[in-house]
């Protein structure tokens, strides 16, 4: 006599109505996710949805910041007098040095104004800056971002340069109603047009992702580049105001087997440690291209 053993059915009986099967639902939501990712990566048209959800979630974000702020407040309360005094002295000496530098810059500024007037070029307006507090560092391990506070009356513009006391930090990439997202110069493939302070040679600095120094790419082996050179923004893109300090060259490796050198640069700004930052207004638009040249360029493009 044999006992037939039937396995339990995988799906519950039909009279328990449970909607579409799990596989169907996973496929449905999976396809939506993939579509969203594709649209977000290629077209960037989901910003309004993102901003809407971010605004709704913002109060929860504020709640999460409370424990950290309490801790900070407590440690500040217990800061010793000595520490505060030494910090004060340090700040005073820094102010003296900065004042001296500013005084010596006056002469140079006057001279450059005279020269630009001689050349007939319009003098770039003084860039305006808005101060902002860093709320928290981005938690996404794949990208390099920080989030800064935005006051209700502050008029942030996506694309503006963000600096701290010692140099360029990055660029505003998303502006939400109450906070703004800054992409750091260390983000992978984030490009900043720079020039070397010593020689004025123009180059482009590329970020390489978390934990790695940005590098100057496509610089030939015979270029005049030394370790310790300071890089300034060149304003060739019209995005960053000119002459902001960006990075310092820490390593130059000239390979015999390659055309280009490998040049690593350390950011001068406290990219991950700044507590407050300045958001600079975008520089005034560059003068438009002359009509003849633009037409010629158009022709060239069409021919290609």
């Amino acid at each position, binding site marked *: 006599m044999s006992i037939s053993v039937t396995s339990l059915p995988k799906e519950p009986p039909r009279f328990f109505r449970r909607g579409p099967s*799990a*596989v169907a*639902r*996973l496929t449905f*939501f*999976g396809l*939506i*996710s*993939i*579509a*969203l*990712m594709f*649209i*977000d*990566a290629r077209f960037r048209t*989901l910003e309004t*949805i*993102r901003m809407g*959800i*971010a605004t709704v*979630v913002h109060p*929860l*974000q504020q*709640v*999460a*910041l409370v*424990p*950290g702020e309490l801790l900070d407040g407590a440690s500040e309360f217990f800061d010793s007098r000595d520490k505060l005094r030494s910090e004060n002295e340090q700040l005073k000496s820094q102010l003296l040095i900065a004042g001296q530098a500013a005084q010596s810059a006056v002469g140079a500024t006057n001279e450059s104004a005279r020269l630009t007037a001689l050349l007939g070029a319009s003098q770039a307006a003084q860039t305006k800056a808005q101060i902002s507090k860093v*709320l*928290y*560092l*981005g*938690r*996404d*391990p*794949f*990208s390099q*971002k920080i*989030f800064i506070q935005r006051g209700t009356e502050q008029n942030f513009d996506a694309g503006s340069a963000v600096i701290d006391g010692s140099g360029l930090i990055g660029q505003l990439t*998303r502006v939400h109603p109450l906070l703004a*997202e800054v992409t750091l110069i260390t983000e*992978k*493939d984030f490009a900043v047009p720079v020039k070397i302070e010593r020689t004025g040679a123009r180059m482009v600095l590329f970020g*390489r*992702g*978390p*934990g*790695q120094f940005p590098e100057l790419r496509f610089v030939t082996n015979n270029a005049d580049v030394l370790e310790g050179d300071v890089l300034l923004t060149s304003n060739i893109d019209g995005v960053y105001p000119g002459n902001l300090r960006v990075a310092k060259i820490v390593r130059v490796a000239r390979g015999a087997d390659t055309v280009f050198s490998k040049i690593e640069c350390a950011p001068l700004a406290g990219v*991950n440690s700044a507590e407050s930052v300045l958001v600079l207004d975008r520089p005034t638009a560059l003068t438009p291209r002359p009509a003849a040249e633009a037409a010629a360029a158009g022709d060239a493009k069409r021919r290609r």
Partner: protein
Amino acid sequence: MFRFPDSPLFKVARAEDIILPPSPWFVVLTLVVAFIANLMPLSGWALALRPDFFAVVLLYWAIHQPRWIGIGVAWLCGLLTDVVEANLFGQHALAYAILGFSAEYFHRRVLRFPLWQQSLHVLGLLIAAQGVVIVLRLMSGAALPSATLLLSSVTSVLLWPPLSALLQWPQRVRSLTD
């Protein structure tokens, strides 16, 4: 055999035990608290070691209450995570939807094991979800992050036994706790 200490901290009902149904408000509350816990402004090693509270609590309810917390809810939670982390829109949504699916697929089986063996199941599921995120980001051109990224799955799993006991606390019948 290895056993957890016999304390109420690690005691949960077995599959055949009868416990009270959870209150829907409690489920929502725990999810919100876990979401806020994920939003803590951490960086460096603290961030690398931070368990993914939201994923663990989500997985707990998806395993214990699959009728309430399923693939759709998990997907929505993932979408919220994507917005606050400011990364690719939809990556956590897909990863959490997969978590929801595997919870639905495994929930009858997982609950038959003692807590530490449940943890091993959970470890597998969480690493699979993280693997999905890593593959998606690499495909979209991000740099490969350091391997410390996977540490958060391990700490999340360490959280599983005490969290299970804690979340089941309000559902205990008196005879079980006595």
